[in-house]
């Protein structure tokens, strides 16, 4: 009905806010959807895979399946091979193996396979012969070796010299089947290679019957469940990061777009009042605003999606570099993120305009006739209710943060808590703006000159508009201070814990490898055992019997002296005698077992580190580094800190970057609409600079209000984070606020605000604008 033309100036702001928001949403959902695991290369040629029974899900999001023993796997493979259409059924025997090239372990490959497994990946020999003896090896072509070359290979037994017997396509490492059977006795998957033109589904259901309950049949994309555990872990971390990013960007988008629309509508009160006076019903006014919002939202969706899709590959590479995604991560354009992004613009715009249009529909026609826009200062009951319930929710989440003893949960609670508090502050802002303005401008009232008075009264007569303009500042400051404060405070807490736990001594740590072999010392071996379906993480240390944590013992009713059957990594069931129940827990693991017992059943287990006893000579060799304990602890924390900082920077980047844009956006819109007031000032005798100064002062006041409210939200969140941290490290923690970050963010908002307000105001030349802006 009414054309958008001519209104584009006020709608441009809403369009920009929505487009950038949709861009970020598109980016994070595209990256999120790409996070699906690929089918591992080594199993690409196996159309059907039978996997050992899945372990029940525990705290570990990616438990490894309980393996079959070697004889069980061989027997099952023989029965599977008998299915018509199956060309071969090959146990997937994988173990730790890493070639050493030019004196350094090659970090791209850590898995070795038996030669038979080459068929599962479809890799054929391109030169030489299959591995025969114990010290023969077939390498992928990518290593650039030829048959007859000598290569050092790291396995759990330590480095050893091997002879290259052959070369295949790809990047694999293959040992003879006899060797593989020895170092990888437990089997978690049997791959079925089908004869040409055989129906996969038919074979899969036949395999289902053969396996019975003892295994799970996977086909197609389902085979991605067998991706390496380390990759799955990394991917899981990436998912956490992207979930937080998507949640935050979605929140920030709805928030900014809603406040921009509220603002746009508030600016147009006069026009809407005039429309009402000459015959537009409240419903027509609402419909007009919904129509505009839909058009703006749809356009923003398309623009945002294009931007998001263009940036996704670059950010994907950053995620891989940062260690949030495994190297196999590729950005894929799935349908659902595209659909979500296309829907996001209109939905967000409609949500944004919803409450604003209700208010506009209620606008009394006479408002068109008033000279100045003097608002009704009272807040609606719905707004009070919404603001107070958000505040209550935020405080409840803050309490959750404060009492959480898990860092992951604590951070999640803190983020959502801060979101709720930001909403509460924004909803209640019109009520708190007048006292805050009076407080902030009290010194201004004392000085002579019009600037202070104009800024103060401008903010006071329209608390809703002031609150709307301050909202993006509030959001930006709250998240920037909260996230950077959280990171700095937790880094500080961990540093304090490290300093408290300082130990002397020297340790051997891996260098470019996932763990230490036996030649590097008798470090604790990491392995998994199963009781029933449940996986237990174990540490193989030099001790006589098994030690279990009190929690585990109580859960299963185990007592000292009892013998409990456990399935080991080789699939064998062995009775384990409970030697000790430890009240204080065992740190990272569920159980400690004698090292030799673990080694006997898990020939490929590695140790994360090893103590170096004073008397021993330091071991040497590839993949080993000898450092003192303090350095080791600091390095481990530095790596953790690095990840947290990258994560934090991404969150601050999204919220603060977008927030700053919204600050400039709203203030520019505000300044453009205030041009008339400023023109009147010019006519009343103010110089160009006085007008610019008045506009800048008003903007600075708005930034101050937003900073104050945002700071309050951030401090509330940080106090709860500190309480949660001291719960985790069991010591008092100092609250650290990184003032440079805070100063930078507030300074940026101030700069943008002052520029956005002063530049249009300075360009005003009396009479021309007085008429123009009518």
């Amino acid at each position, binding site marked *: *009905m009414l*054309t958008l033309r001519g209104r584009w100036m006020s709608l441009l702001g809403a369009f920009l806010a929505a487009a950038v928001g949709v861009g970020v949403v598109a980016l994070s959902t595209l990256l999120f959807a790409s996070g699906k695991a690929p089918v591992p290369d080594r199993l690409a040629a196996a159309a059907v895979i039978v996997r050992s029974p899945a372990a029940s899900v525990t705290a570990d999001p990616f438990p490894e399946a309980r393996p079959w023993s070697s004889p069980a796997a061989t027997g099952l493979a023989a029965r599977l091979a008998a299915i018509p259409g199956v060309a071969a059924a090959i146990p997937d025997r994988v173990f730790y193996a890493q070639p050493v090239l030019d004196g350094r372990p090659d970090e791209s490959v850590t898995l070795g396979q038996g030669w038979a497994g080459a068929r599962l990946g479809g890799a054929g020999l391109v030169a030489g012969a299959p591995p025969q003896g114990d010290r023969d090896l077939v390498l992928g072509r990518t290593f650039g070796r030829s048959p007859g070359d000598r290569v050092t290979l790291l396995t759990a037994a330590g480095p050893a010299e091997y002879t290259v017997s052959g070369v295949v396509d790809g990047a694999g490492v293959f040992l003879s089947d006899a060797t593989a059977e020895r170092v990888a006795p437990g089997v978690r998957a049997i791959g079925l290679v089908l004869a040409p033109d055989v129906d996969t589904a038919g074979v899969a259901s036949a395999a289902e019957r053969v396996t019975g309950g003892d295994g799970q049949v996977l086909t197609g994309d389902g085979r991605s469940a067998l991706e390496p555990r380390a990759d799955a872990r990394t991917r899981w971390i990436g998912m956490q990061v992207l979930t937080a990013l998507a949640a935050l960007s979605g929140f920030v988008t709805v928030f900014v777009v809603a406040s921009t629309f509220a603002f746009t509508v508030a600016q147009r009160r006069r026009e809407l009042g005039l429309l*009402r006076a000459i*015959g537009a*019903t*409240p419903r027509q006014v609402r419909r007009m605003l919904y129509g505009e919002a839909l058009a703006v939202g749809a356009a923003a969706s398309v623009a945002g999606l294009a931007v998001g899709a263009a940036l996704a590959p670059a950010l994907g590479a950053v995620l891989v570099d940062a260690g949030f995604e495994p190297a196999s991560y590729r950005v894929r354009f799935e349908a659902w993120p595209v659909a979500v992004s296309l829907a996001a613009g209109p939905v967000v715009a409609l949500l944004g305009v919803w409450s604003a249009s209700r208010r506009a529909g209620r606008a009394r026609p*006479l408002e068109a006739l008033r000279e100045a826009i003097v608002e009704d200062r009272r807040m609606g009951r719905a707004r009070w209710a919404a603001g107070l319930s958000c505040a209550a929710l935020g405080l409840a989440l803050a309490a959750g943060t404060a009492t959480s003893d898990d860092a992951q949960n604590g951070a999640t609670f803190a983020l959502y808590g801060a979101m709720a508090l930001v909403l509460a502050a924004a909803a209640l802002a019109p009520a708190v703006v007048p006292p805050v303005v009076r407080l902030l401008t009290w010194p201004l009232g004392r000085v002579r000159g019009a600037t202070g008075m104009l800024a103060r009264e401008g903010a006071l007569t329209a608390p809703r508009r002031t609150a709307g303009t301050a909202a993006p500042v509030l959001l930006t400051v709250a998240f920037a201070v909260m996230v950077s404060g959280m990171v700095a405070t937790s880094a500080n807490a961990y540093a304090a814990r490290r300093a408290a736990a300082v130990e002397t001594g020297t340790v051997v740590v891996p260098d470019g490898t996932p763990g230490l072999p036996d030649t590097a010392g008798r470090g604790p071996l990491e392995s998994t055992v199963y009781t029933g379906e449940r996986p237990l993480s174990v540490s193989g240390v030099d001790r006589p019997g098994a030690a279990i944590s009190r929690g585990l013992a109580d859960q299963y009713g185990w007592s000292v002296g009892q013998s409990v059957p456990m399935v080991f990594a080789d699939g064998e069931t062995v009775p384990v005698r409970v030697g000790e129940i430890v009240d204080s827990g065992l740190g990272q693991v569920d159980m400690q077992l004698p090292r030799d017992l673990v080694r006997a059943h898990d020939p490929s287990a590695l140790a994360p580190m090893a103590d170096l006893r004073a008397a021993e000579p330091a071991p040497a060799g590839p993949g080993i580094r000898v450092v003192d304990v303090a350095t080791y602890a600091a390095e481990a924390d530095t790596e953790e800190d690095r990840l947290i900082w990258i994560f934090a920077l991404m969150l601050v980047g999204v919220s603060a970057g977008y927030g700053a844009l919204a600050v400039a956006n709203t203030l520019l819109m505000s300044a453009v609409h205030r041009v008339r007031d400023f023109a009147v000032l010019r006519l009343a005798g103010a110089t160009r600079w006085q007008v610019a100064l008045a506009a800048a002062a008003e903007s600075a006041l708005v930034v101050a209000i937003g900073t104050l409210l945002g700071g309050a939200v951030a401090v509330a969140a940080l106090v709860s984070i500190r309480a949660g941290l001291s719960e985790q490290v069991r010591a008092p923690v100092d609250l650290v606020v990184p003032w440079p970050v805070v100063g930078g963010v507030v300074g940026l908002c101030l700069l943008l605000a002052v520029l956005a307000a002063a530049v249009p105001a300075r360009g005003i030349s009396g009479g021309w604008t007085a008429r*123009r802006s*009518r």
Partner: protein
Amino acid sequence: MTTVMLREVRAVYGTGPTRVTALDGVTVGFDSGTFTAVMGPSGSGKSTLLHCAAGLDRPVEGTVTIEGTLLNALDETALTRLRRDRIGFVFQAYNLVSSLTAAQNVALPVRLAGRRPDPDQVAAALAAVGLAGRAGHRPSQLSGGEQQRVALARALLRRPAVVFADEPTGALDSATSRQVLDILRGLVDRDGQTVVMVTHDPMAAGYADRVLILADGRLVEDLTDASAEDIAARTARLEASC
């Protein structure tokens, strides 16, 4: 026949210490086909009277009837429809939507009523107020008097039962004022249009059949066929007394 009837209308703004009684029990009727001028000192309640009569504001007490329809009984939507279909209004200032051209502004109530405006009719309405060549101009490209005349064209387009005009000549020079007043007079004489106009200008009031004078929210004079000099003398006396 009485087109608009106000009975015992009281209008109050604000509460507590800022409370202002803008109209204090006004009873007045406007007959069909008459031209009435409303005068009085600034702040005497003239605009408020017009707003109440046009259904833009609801009085705290008293009734307003237009063509037999009791406005007090109508809900917001029904009131809006009545305003759109039966009442024309020219405001004291800020009459036009700045993003629309003169012609679009004139046609706006028709569009709001969900009908397609007739371009010839819109052109004729603009021509009647002497703006035939300015149809495509936006408010920012028009002078104050021209904007006022566009608003008048809009008010007249749908042949309303009554046209209210709040100081339509307030910002105009005397030649342009006369132009606008001649248009209004012509409407009354030729088409039997009912017109109620607020003005401070005795010369303008001289065009009217009847002059009402308000003071402090009360009706103090009701003159028929008064001359401009007579009106000027009475208003001067009134202003001197307060």
